[in-house]
C-alpha cells in the first residue's frame, strides 16, 4: 500500500461544482469521478485522493453548544469531579461564538438549571427579570379580547436565551470542557461495524464554484467514544442518524411536526416598558385553520422581544408567515408598544411541536440525541429549554455510566421515561393534536384538558398529516394581499435579513 500525493483536477465542464472529491484509495486505481448529480460527463481521473484529515480524539464529543449540549457537558464534568475521575469532553459549535445561533422567546422555567447549577443566582447567571404579569388575548382585526391565561409562569423569568447559553459556556469551560465555536460538524464518522465514532468538521475556504481558495483548510475528524447530538430542532446530523437507525420506528414515534418562530427585539419607550410582562395572543392575523400565536415579552433595559409562531402544517400556500408577523405588529393593541421604539434585531427559527407522540428512540450505536434534535418541547407551555437541558443532563449521566460502570447508553432512554420530562410531555400530549380539528374545537379540547382531564386518561390523539403534506393546492385558496412594509413598524425581507446578519447576542 502506498500513499499518493494529492492531486486535484478541475473539471473541464462548466458544471457548478468544479471540484470533485474522491474517496481515498490505498492502491493505484483510475477513478471514474462524478459524485454529484450536476455533472453530466463522467470524467476519468488518475491517482486521485482526498487530502487526509487530522484526527483528534475525546471521550465524549457533543455537537452543538446550546442549552442541551452544554448541560450535558457540565453534568459530565460534575460527575467526574464527584467520582474523582476525568473524561475529555469536546463541544463543537457552528456559530462564531457560543450563543451566536441561539434564538428563543424566552420565558424560562429554571427547573433544570436549579438541578444543574443550583448556585446560578450567586454565580450571576443572566436571569434577573422575573415574570411580573401574564396576559392572554384573543385578537380580531381591530380588537383584543382578554382571556384567562392558560399559563402559570410564577417562578419563571424573561430572559435572553443566547445570553444564558453564553454564561453556561463559560461555566462549562471553567469545569474543563473544551468548546470550539466556528466549527460545524458536517458529517458523521462510522467504524466498520456501522457504529458512530465521531464527526467530521467542514472544509473551509471553498469558493462559490466549489474550487479551493488560497485559504483552503481541510476539516478535521473529531472522534469520541460517545457522540451526543444537540443540534436543535431538525438538526442535520440528527435527522441522518434517525433515518439510518430507524429511530422513529424504534421508539414507536409519529412524524415530527414543526412551527416557524419569527422574532424581533425592540428597544421601546421607558413609559411603555414593564419588565417581566408576558403577553401571548391567539387569533388574528392567523385564520381558524392555522395553528399559531404571538408572544411579547418585556426583558430588561427597555427591550422587548416579540414574535409570531406559525405551525407549518398551514393549508393555504399563499400564507406567508413572515408577512403575517409584519401585519401583526400593526394591530391596534400591539402597535402602541412599538411607537417611538427602535428595532434592534431580527431572526427566525423552527421549533418542534410533536411533543410526546414524536419523540424518537434517542439512542444509537455510539451515542445519543438530546434536546430539540429529539424534540422535548412542551407545546401548551411553549417551553422547551428546561426539558432540553434536563435531557442533556440525563444523557450525561448515562454516558458517565458507560465509562464508569460499563453500562450502555440505553439507560438514557429509561432515565428519560422516568423523569419529569416524560411526565410533562405525557400530560400535555393532546393539546396540539386537538387543533387538527380547527381552532374552536382545539381551544375547547385544550380547555377540557387544562381544567379537567389534565392528561389523566388513556387517549392519545395522533397528529394530522405531516406538515409538508398538509399544504393544499393553490387553486383551493385565494392569494392573500399583504400590505407594503412601512419601514417603521414593518419591514421587507432584505432589511430584516440584514439585521439578522449582525451578531448581536440579544436573542
Amino acid at each position: 500500500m502506498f500513499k499518493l500525493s494529492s492531486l486535484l483536477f478541475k473539471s473541464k465542464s462548466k458544471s457548478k461544482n468544479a471540484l470533485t472529491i474522491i474517496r481515498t484509495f490505498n492502491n493505484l486505481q483510475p477513478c471514474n469521478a462524478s459524485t454529484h448529480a450536476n455533472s453530466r460527463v463522467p470524467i476519468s481521473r488518475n491517482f486521485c485522493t482526498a487530502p487526509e484529515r487530522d484526527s483528534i480524539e475525546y471521550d465524549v464529543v457533543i455537537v452543538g453548544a446550546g442549552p442541551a449540549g452544554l448541560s450535558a457537558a457540565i453534568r459530565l464534568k460534575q460527575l467526574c469531579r464527584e467520582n474523582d475521575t476525568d473524561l475529555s469532553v469536546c463541544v463543537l459549535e457552528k456559530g462564531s461564538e457560543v450563543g451566536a445561533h441561539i434564538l428563543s422567546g424566552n420565558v424560562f422555567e429554571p427547573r433544570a438549571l436549579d438541578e444543574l447549577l443550583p448556585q446560578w443566582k450567586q454565580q450571576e447567571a443572566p436571569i434577573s427579570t422575573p415574570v411580573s404579569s401574564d396576559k392572554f388575548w384573543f385578537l380580531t382585526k381591530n380588537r383584543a379580547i382578554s382571556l384567562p391565561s392558560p399559563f402559570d409562569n410564577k417562578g419563571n423569568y424573561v430572559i435572553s436565551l443566547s445570553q444564558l447559553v453564553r454564561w453556561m459556556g463559560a461555566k462549562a469551560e471553567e469545569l474543563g470542557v473544551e468548546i470550539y465555536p466556528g466549527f460545524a460538524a458536517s458529517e458523521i464518522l462510522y467504524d466498520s461495524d456501522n457504529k458512530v465514532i465521531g464527526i467530521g468538521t467542514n472544509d473551509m475556504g471553498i469558493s462559490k464554484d466549489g474550487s479551493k481558495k488560497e485559504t483552503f483548510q481541510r476539516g478535521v475528524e473529531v472522534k469520541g467514544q460517545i457522540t451526543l447530538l444537540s443540534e436543535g430542532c431538525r438538526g442535520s446530523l440528527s435527522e441522518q442518524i434517525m433515518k439510518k437507525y430507524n429511530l422513529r420506528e424504534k421508539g414507536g414515534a409519529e412524524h415530527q411536526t414543526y412551527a416557524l418562530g419569527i422574532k424581533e427585539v425592540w428597544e421601546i419607550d421607558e413609559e411603555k416598558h414593564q419588565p417581566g410582562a408576558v403577553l401571548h395572543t391567539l387569533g388574528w392575523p392567523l385564520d381558524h385553520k392555522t395553528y399559531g400565536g404571538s408572544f411579547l415579552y418585556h426583558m430588561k433595559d427597555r427591550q422587548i422581544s416579540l414574535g409570531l409562531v406559525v405551525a407549518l402544517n398551514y393549508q393555504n400556500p399563499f400564507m406567508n408567515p413572515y408577512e403575517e408577523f409584519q401585519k401583526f405588529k400593526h394591530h391596534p393593541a400591539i402597535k402602541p408598544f412599538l411607537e417611538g421604539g427602535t428595532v434592534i434585531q431580527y431572526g427566525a427559527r423552527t421549533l418542534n411541536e410533536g411533543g410526546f407522540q414524536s419523540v424518537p428512540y434517542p439512542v444509537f450505536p455510539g451515542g445519543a440525541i438530546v434536546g430539540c434534535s429529539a424534540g422535548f418541547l412542551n407545546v401548551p407551555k411553549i417551553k422547551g429549554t428546561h426539558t432540553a437541558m434536563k435531557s442533556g443532563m440525563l444523557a450525561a449521566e448515562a454516558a458517565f455510566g458507560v465509562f464508569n460502570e460499563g453500562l450502555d447508553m440505553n439507560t438514557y432512554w429509561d432515565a428519560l421515561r422516568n423523569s419529569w420530562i416524560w411526565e410533562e410531555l405525557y400530560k400535555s400530549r393532546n393539546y396540539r393534536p386537538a387543533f387538527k380539528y380547527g381552532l374552536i374545537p382545539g381551544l375547547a379540547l385544550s380547555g377540557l384538558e387544562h381544567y379537567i382531564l389534565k392528561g389523566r386518561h388513556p387517549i392519545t390523539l395522533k397528529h394530522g398529516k405531516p406538515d409538508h403534506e398538509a399544504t393544499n393546492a393553490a387553486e383551493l385558496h385565494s392569494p392573500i394581499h399583504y400590505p407594503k412594509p412601512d419601514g417603521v413598524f414593518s419591514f421587507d425581507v432584505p432589511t430584516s435579513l440584514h439585521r439578522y446578519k449582525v451578531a448581536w447576542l440579544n436573542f
Partner: protein
Amino acid sequence: MKIMVTVKRVIDYAVKIRVKPDKTGVVTQNVKMSMNPFCEIALEEALRIRESGLASEVVAVSMGPSQCVDTLRTGLAMGADRGIHVEANDSMYPLFVAKILKKLVEIEKPGLLILGKQAIDDDCNQTGQMVAGLLNWPQGTFASKVVLDKEKQVATVDREVDDGIETLCLNLPAVITTDLRLNQPRYATLPNIMKAKSKPIKKFTPKELNVDIKPDLEIVEVTEPPKRKSGVLVSSVDELIEKLKHEANVI
C-alpha cells in the same frame, strides 16, 4: 529575525454599532468582538515571511483588558509563536500604544514590526507612524506588497497611495502597516486552536514598562451621524441656485 505584530481586539466588523443612550461611546456589552481585520492581515504577512524562511519567530502583541487574551489566542492559533499581553483597562490611544510598543521593541529586539494600518473602531491610522517616529525606524505604510531581502537587510514595500502605488525600499529594522490587498488571512484550524492553548503569553502592565498612559484626550460626546435626507426635485435652475445658496450654503 523576529517579527513583532500588534493585534487589536475590536467590535466585529459585521456588527451594527449603536451609540449608548448617555452618548459617552458605543454599546460594547454583549457585542461580538474580534481581531481587527487589518491586524489579521498583518499577522498573516508575518507568518508568510516566517514560512518562507526569512524570519525565525512571530510574536503577537495585544493591549487592553483581560479579554485581549482571546484575541492573542486566535493569533496563536493562526500560527504566531508567542503572545504578549499588556494589561490596561483604560482606553488605549495611539500615542500610548506607540510608547509601549517602543519599550517592547527594546526588550524583544524584532527586525520587523508589522501593524494593521488602522483599527476599525477608532480609524486613527496613527500608531504605526508614531512608533516609527519614536523608534526612528523607516516606515512603509498602507503596504499592498512586501518583499524582504535578507542579505541586504531591506524590505521593499509597495504602498497604496492616492495617485497609485509607491514603492519604497526600507532598511531593516522597519515598521510596516498593512492595507487590505496585501493578503488573505488564513483560517485557524481546530488542531491549531488546540495547540495554541499551550503557547506562552507573557503579561506586562504599562507601569512595569514605565509608560504613563493617562489620557490627554477626553471624549466629549459620541453621536450617530445625521440620517441621510431624501433628495428633493427642483423645478427650475433658479430654484436650484436658491437652494444651494440658502439651504446648503455652498455658494
